């Protein structure tokens, strides 16, 4: 059923839609620089550095072990996986899951994260809602059910208006997520203005605890290394080499 098309004043486009885009964008850029300023130094302990490198070495042994002689590979595998005193069996790191309450540095990090991201969003969202209220801003291109009306049409008291016509607050939120790709273009990957990424991290990051990882990582490496076998890449290297003449181009 064709609903009557509303014609919006073009002033709305000039004075509402574009300013909101600019505001969102500039706030994002400012957030990026503020997060850089507030970044605290991550101090790694010697043990953490050492462990991460050991894990890398074990992984390299698994992947590229075929380039060293069989004896050497077995020697290293034995060093890592031996039943009594192999490295992965023997080392148990002290596991202290850093809960936000006990670990002060994590607490400040979380607070900084909240201040730079969530607070501005709420403040500016509210301000926009207050400033640009009482009129329809734009229309979303797909039909929505009536349940979305109170959410998307904050200041507009029209019962019969289609839910597709939204207010400026919802246009603001649309911008927050939409400008993400613009931020990557201008500020490079990994920028502090990327809100949705941060929110995703917050949701999944609460489940991760770093130090407990080390023990689990060691166990995982041990299993993986047990399964690896040595397939010497150099078995038939002479035959391969001599199957054709050497390419001596450029020798002088």
């Amino acid at each position, binding site marked *: 059923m064709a609903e009557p098309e509303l014609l919006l004043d073009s002033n709305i486009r000039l004075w509402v839609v574009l300013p909101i885009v600019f505001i969102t964008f500039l706030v994002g850029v400012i957030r990026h620089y503020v997060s850089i300023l507030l970044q605290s130094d991550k101090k790694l302990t010697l043990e953490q*550095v*050492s462990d991460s*490198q050991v894990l890398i070495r074990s992984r*390299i042994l698994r992947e590229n072990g075929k380039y*060293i002689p069989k004896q050497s590979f077995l020697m290293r595998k034995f060093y890592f996986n031996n039943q009594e005193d192999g490295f992965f069996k023997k080392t148990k790191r002290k596991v202290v899951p850093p809960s936000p309450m006990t670990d002060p540095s994590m607490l400040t990090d979380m607070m900084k994260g909240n201040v730079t991201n969530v607070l501005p969003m709420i403040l500016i969202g509210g301000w926009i809602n207050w400033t640009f209220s009482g009129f329809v801003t734009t229309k979303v291109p797909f039909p929505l059910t009536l349940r979305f009306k109170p959410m998307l049409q904050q200041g507009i008291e029209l019962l019969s208006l289609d839910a597709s016509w939204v207010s400026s607050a919802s246009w603001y939120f649309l911008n927050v997520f939409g400008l993400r790709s613009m931020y990557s273009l201008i500020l490079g990957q990994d920028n502090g203005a990327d809100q949705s990424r941060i929110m995703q991290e917050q949701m999944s990051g609460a489940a991760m605890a770093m130090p407990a990882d080390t023990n689990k990582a060691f166990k995982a490496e041990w299993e993986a290394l047990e399964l690896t076998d040595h397939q010497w890449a150099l078995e038939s290297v002479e035959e391969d080499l001599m199957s054709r003449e*050497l390419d*001596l181009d450029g020798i*002088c």
Partner: protein
Amino acid sequence: MASVSEMYDVGWEEMRDKLRKWREDNRRNSEQIVDVGEELISEHASKLGDDIWIIYEQVMIAALDCSRDDLALTCLQELRKQFPDSHRVKRLAGMRLEALERYEEANKHYDAILQDDPTNTAARKRKIAILKAQGKSTEAIRELNEYLEQFVGDQEAWHELSELYINEHDYGKAAFCLEELMMTNPHNHLYCEQYAEVKYTQGGLENMELSRKYFAQALRLNNRNMRALFGLYMSASHIASSPKVSAKVKKDNIKYAAWAATQINRAYKLAGRGTKETKYSVKAVEEMLESMQITMS
């Protein structure tokens, strides 16, 4: 004395770009760096902007290499003024003390850095370098081993350790270090070749076979590695002439050695193309190969 820009007719941007290229390629052409860098710093400092700090560092290290203590001191003072608390600058100060052979003071300097930041690899490596400069190879080896226990992934440290072991004639351990390097850089033909040379030096039938295989691998990775080609020839002839091998192995190795010899001849012919001396050099190569042949029984 004409300045660099006059001699080569380059502007300051080209000089700066050249310095950057040398920095990225990790080249140690210290005299050139000192010439170019000194002029850049004295004449064009204001135009360089923030690049100047890293150029100061590069020129300072080059100046220490060329015994230009005056230049090194200037650079160090500028860096100290700008970055008073930096570990990186402190390491440079330590390096200057090393260059002046004031090793005790330099050691104290590095210990102070390490107390502040135990994960600082640069300071530890400089301490090991001091031991090496003083000729205390056994201690240097011991310290380097301890360092590598903590930082297993540091490739230049593994390479340095392999060099130290070769100097001490401990070929087994040198081979271990080179194996680490081969694992992390499987496509680098130079590591394969060095490993093969160490195995060849160790001697014994098994090592000789390994050495031949790794020379072949180095050649496979880079067809133009002449050293590996000669190595292949030598190791194959060595095995072929050993009395303890079976007939089949002997035959195979004679075949490998012959193939290697043809390739060597080909290479010298190609290299000498277009010159009159080609005939003579090819003959010289053939004679050399004959003389290198281990007598086959």
